[in-house]
């Protein structure tokens, strides 16, 4: 029994740290509220969709920015296309409460609007980094939840 209580406490502490450090915001709580007996895997399912879509969008963003090489001139980048992809990523990250990814997307959209190439490249690096962090954190969270379910028998 002690082991289970310990795991549960670790989960509570870990989840709290994700909110405290800004990785997640209240929208994640909203998602958890939507999970119930009729929809027991909802959070994992919707977050998995987010991972798939985010990875696709990050690839598209890289391709769109890379297509400017070797010129890397403003004229060769399709900022409209870039903005459309960032807009999508901004929307889906906001839907699951991935706050830091969402924040970088806001800056990224500003860079697109200003047609700021260097800004866009920097933002892409930032959003990749934030996405990678939140993905790792959420995977850890889900693993801990699974351990608890298994320990509870």
């Amino acid at each position, binding site marked *: 029994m002690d082991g289970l209580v310990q795991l549960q406490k670790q989960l509570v502490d870990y989840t709290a740290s994700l909110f405290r450090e800004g990785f997640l915001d209240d929208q994640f709580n909203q998602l958890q509220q939507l999970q119930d007996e009729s929809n027991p895997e909802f959070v994992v399912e*919707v977050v998995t969709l*987010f991972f798939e879509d985010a990875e696709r969008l990050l690839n598209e963003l890289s391709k769109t920015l890379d297509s400017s090489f070797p010129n890397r001139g403003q004229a060769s980048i399709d900022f409209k296309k870039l903005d459309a992809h960032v807009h999508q990523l901004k929307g*889906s990250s906001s839907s699951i409460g991935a706050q830091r990814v969402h924040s970088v997307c806001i800056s990224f959209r500003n860079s697109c609007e200003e047609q700021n190439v260097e800004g866009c490249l920097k933002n892409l690096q930032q959003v990749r980094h934030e996405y990678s962090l939140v993905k790792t954190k959420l995977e850890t969270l889900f693993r801990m939840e699974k351990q608890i379910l298994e320990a509870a028998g």
Partner: protein
Amino acid sequence: MKPKNSSSQLKALVVDDDRVTRMTHEALLKKVGVESLASVENGKKAVDLHCNGQSFDLILMDKDMPVMNGVEATKQLRSMGIRDMIVGVSSSRGAENVQQFMDAGLDHFYTKPLTVDMLKAIIDKI
């Protein structure tokens, strides 16, 4: 005894190009008791459903979508005489954007992301 406007009798349509948002909005609607749901990924598909004779009590309409956006879809639905409650949902907060969307014929507008409380408030207005 179920009240006259019980949410379980309502039929809702989610219109959004982002599948994460579609999934979340569907789950929100189910949570507040709406049992009859459909979802499509752009405004044109929403218009087509109505052209095929479908009607809904509530449409959650995203603003920015490919093929046909929410503003255009709302205008078309209203010009077809469609009286469904259309709630615009968008992450765009700018007053001009919101006004343009409202002017297209929305009943209400909410900023994304939607929450359970916001949806309950919307259902109460139907």
